[in-house]
């Protein structure tokens, strides 16, 4: 060290600077240690919060599975509801849910994507579009029963659509519309300006930019929002009860596909129906404990389907975003 010092005599100043850092090194180390302790404390708190949420869900799910275990068989899915709990099944409920979801999807996706795209790409940015933006975000927080009341007035009484699959699908479609709009806008906004400018710079029109770029790069995010919205719609009960879904149905709606031309049939849209959460609610409200087993099995099924949908959303987002780096 001393030899090193003597060979470097002309550059005295830097050595002094070094020495002062060295002198403070203990203090620096103590400080880093203190800051790291904060990291540690936070990670413990965060983990506990996460575990609390996860464990609650897990225990709930485990409880449902244990209670409903004896109904986990195909017969449960292929039988209509019945006065005898052991013979009762979910056939009309899951078919109803599937058809309602189909309408919901067909309503929410085109409308939500078009609205999000318009707001983000076409609408002039002024106080009016700000107002719309705030309102769309607020709509996502409106209690779902309010949508039910709106639907009862508009779809059932004014438009005369009846207590039908169409009414339910429209209602849930409106309910998840804000989710689709917001996720559409966010995925669109994530596309860098440089990419848009690149497209415009080679002479693309606005619609070419939207169609060839904006939609192509954002559909992963849009799809994620759609699936999460659909998963929410699947479990919605209040608005469906409000519009007057039936609780005991021992028939299926007319099939959407037929064996005579034109092979599709829209009668199912005006059919009465029930859905999974309503069937569950119905069984739960019976005094006979045997029906509670059915309810638990239904609850477990809803959770499984919801988790599968969310899992698909996560997988798709990962897969689609893999090719896009910004």
């Amino acid at each position: 060290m001393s030899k090193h010092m003597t060979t470097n005599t002309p550059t005295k100043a830097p050595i002094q600077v070094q020495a002062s850092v060295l002198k403070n090194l203990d203090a620096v180390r103590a400080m880093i240690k203190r800051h790291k302790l904060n990291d540690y404390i936070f990670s413990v708190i965060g983990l506990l919060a996460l575990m609390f949420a996860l464990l609650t869900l897990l225990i709930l799910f485990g409880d449902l599975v244990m209670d409903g275990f004896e109904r986990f068989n195909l017969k449960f899915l292929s039988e209509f509801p019945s006065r005898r709990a052991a013979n009762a099944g979910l056939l009309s409920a899951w078919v109803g849910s599937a058809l309602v979801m189909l309408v919901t999807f067909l309503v929410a996706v085109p409308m939500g994507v078009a609205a999000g795209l318009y707001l983000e790409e076409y609408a002039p940015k002024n106080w009016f579009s700000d107002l719309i933006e705030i309102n769309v975000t607020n709509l996502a927080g409106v209690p779902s029963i309010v949508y039910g009341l709106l639907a009862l007035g508009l779809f059932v009484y004014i438009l005369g659509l009846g207590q039908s699959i169409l009414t339910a699908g429209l209602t849930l479609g409106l309910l998840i519309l804000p989710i689709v709009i917001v996720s559409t806008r966010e995925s669109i906004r994530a596309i860098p300006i440089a990419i848009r400018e690149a497209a415009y710079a080679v002479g693309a029109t606005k619609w070419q930019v939207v169609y060839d770029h904006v939609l192509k790069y954002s559909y992963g995010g849009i799809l994620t929002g759609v699936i999460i919205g659909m998963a929410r719609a699947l479990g919605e009960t209040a608005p469906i009860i409000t519009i007057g879904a039936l609780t005991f149905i021992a028939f299926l709606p007319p099939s959407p596909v037929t064996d005579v031309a034109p092979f599709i049939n829209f009668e199912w849209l005006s059919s009465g129906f029930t859905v999974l959460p309503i069937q569950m609610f119905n069984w739960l409200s019976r005094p006979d404990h045997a029906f509670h087993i059915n309810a638990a099995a239904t609850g477990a099924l809803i959770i499984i389907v919801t988790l599968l949908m969310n899992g698909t959303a996560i997988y798709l987002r990962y897969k689609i975003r893999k090719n896009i780096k910004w």
Partner: protein
Amino acid sequence: MQNTTSIIKAQSKNLDFFYSNGMQALKSVNMPLYENKITALIGPSGCGKSTFLRCFNRMHDLYPGNKYQGEIVMHPDNTNILEHGVDPIEVRMRISMVFQKPNPFPKSIYENVAYGLRVRGESNKRMLDDKVEEALKGAALWNEVKDRQQDLAFNLSGGQQQRLCIARALATDPEIMLFDEPTSALDPIATANIEELMSELKQKLTILVVTHNMQQAARVSDYTAYMYLGELMEYDDTNTIFTNPTRKETEDYITGKFG
């Protein structure tokens, strides 16, 4: 360097530009672009170089509230490309642009280059293949990517991505090509490649390049313009600007006393 025979390809006349917040970024700029020459724009950061360049392909039209005053006349047809009746898309079909940071689309190498042609309605596969190959060759990228044209553009290096962007801008046979600090995100070797490329490209088209690298301006350009606070301070052939500038401010900037 003196070119008495040069033809003017485009010319800005009393060009003012106002951003939507009311800020005047260009003040009465009069400047020619000579055909098959490289014109370099230099000047301190924020002086309006990019603003000026982006007037040439009406990029400012993408954002509401921006305002041009004055003219940019293109020859030989004498079109004032800033005129209201002239569609910005038509202007961008004639004048292409390469940006500061490489900005390829998240698509294949092939689709990146073909995009400008697709926008123009070209869908013949043979035609597209030929044009893509020609553009990639023109951008000195063909040898590196000819066997992997379907790979994602993001898998290329930064310098290759920038040459891909040049190929994309080249594929549509533009009359003028704009470069906004095209090498500022690149390493010295990639920079040298791009500079060499620009010197080749000027055989075919007219180039306007913004650079904050004085050596680059001196190396590649035929004419140099020095801008300061939205005004064109001095314009001359590059040799004169770098060896014998008329104005003191230009000399100070070039010699690094200022900026």
